[in-house]
């Protein structure tokens, strides 16, 4: 399956899971909605250019926003992580995109520790910024802090579970191929 088709399918699946499953399940506590749709952005291939990352981030966020009736909220957060992603990858794994043996960021391509740091930082940025924007219009500061921590923890748990349950089959690339 080509990368493009695979990612379009992934996009649809992540959005549907987020809208119809995670946004609807009875919440664990007050407002801790588990988020996972942004994993789509984290899983995009290394070879996607920074411009395209931003555009894809914008579209992803806006699609979710129109389902949840909060235009701009998730879009802003998605843009932020799409912008930060390339920097973070180059800091954590000092390689050029063509030097990776796998196409996408994954525990196998980056090793577990750098991958978890990568996921954690972006999750924290996404939630922090999104909840900050919500907090601007409503809520107390303590609520804001607790929500960021708790939502990040839940999302990390979900993402690690997804990584362990559904290891992506990826071709090992060598320089000769």
């Amino acid at each position: 399956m080509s990368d493009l088709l695979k990612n379009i399918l992934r996009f649809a699946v992540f959005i549907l899971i987020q809208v119809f499953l995670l946004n609807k399940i009875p919440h664990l506590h007050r407002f801790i909605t588990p988020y996972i749709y942004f994993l789509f952005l984290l899983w995009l291939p290394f070879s996607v250019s920074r411009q395209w990352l931003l555009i894809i981030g914008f579209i992803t966020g806006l699609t979710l926003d129109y389902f949840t009736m909060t235009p701009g909220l998730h879009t802003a957060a998605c843009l932020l992580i799409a912008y930060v992603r390339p920097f973070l990858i180059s800091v954590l794994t000092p390689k050029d995109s063509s030097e990776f043996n796998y196409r996408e960021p994954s525990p196998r391509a980056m090793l577990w520790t750098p991958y978890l740091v990568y996921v954690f930082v972006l999750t924290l940025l996404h939630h922090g910024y999104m909840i900050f924007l919500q907090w601007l219009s409503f809520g107390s500061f303590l609520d804001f802090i607790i929500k960021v921590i708790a939502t990040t923890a839940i999302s990390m748990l979900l993402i690690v579970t997804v990584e362990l349950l559904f290891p992506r089959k990826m071709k090992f690339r060598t320089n000769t191929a």
Partner: protein
Amino acid sequence: MRNIFLFIRRYRTLLTFLFLQGVALWFLFTYNRFHKAKGLGVANEITGWVNSKYSNVESFLTLKEENRRVHKMNDSLLNLLSRNFMHVDTSARLVKDSVPFDTLGNSRRYYFRPASVVYNTVNSQKNYIQLNRGSNHGIKDNMAVISSDGSAVGVVVNVSPNFSQVMSLLHVQQKVNASLKKTGDFGTIDWDGKDPRRLTLRGIPKSIDIKTGDTVLTSTYSYNFPPGYMVGTVAEVVTDKSTNFYTLKIKPGANFYNIKQVFVVENLQYSEQITLNQETRKKIEDPKNIKK
């Protein structure tokens, strides 16, 4: 000039980021104020279509419970209209009268339209409900929405041709007039954004004796809600010594977790009332009319 192009070329990504971020924030902040999202008309049709497909599947799972509730509502309505039983025969047909006058010369004030929920959340601070009826079916902004068992649910804030969005009572910007069934004193229902099982009623003076379990109904002073429909029951009386008014925690009558069938209620005199209200204000507050 060349330097400008070089600058743009060099910081292309950052500029794209800042531009898109600006667009996103513009959407966010203009939307919250006016409840009109950019491009929402088109997006509403698309998300509505997806939502209605999903809802088709989901409604099977809640069919039994919903059936029971609708049945109960029908039952109570039939009991209210007991004279209908006299006329029922094979040639009789119940015709819904949309003309604002009935045969007794009474004017019809509220018109009910059935609708079903295609999307709903409770775990945000701003919860919206999407219905499968839109402007093609006569739904307009500011119409009230009540659930199939007759409890207040919210107010329509946006419509597209086939779908409409309802601002649920579980929305931190929602304000609905409500009154106590026992004494008729009225106050305002709002939501503190914390627990979806508790609304807040403010503005009831402390001179009234209130017990938990007292019923709260929609008020006669509301422009969009028909009076006498259930809002909820008093669950807790919060005593605040600094004011002369109660802060009451209300258990909502509608179950927002599994809401499926609703009625959209049109106040046929809504625009007349609103216009009169505005005209009055203009007349009284206009500096020309103030007596010197």
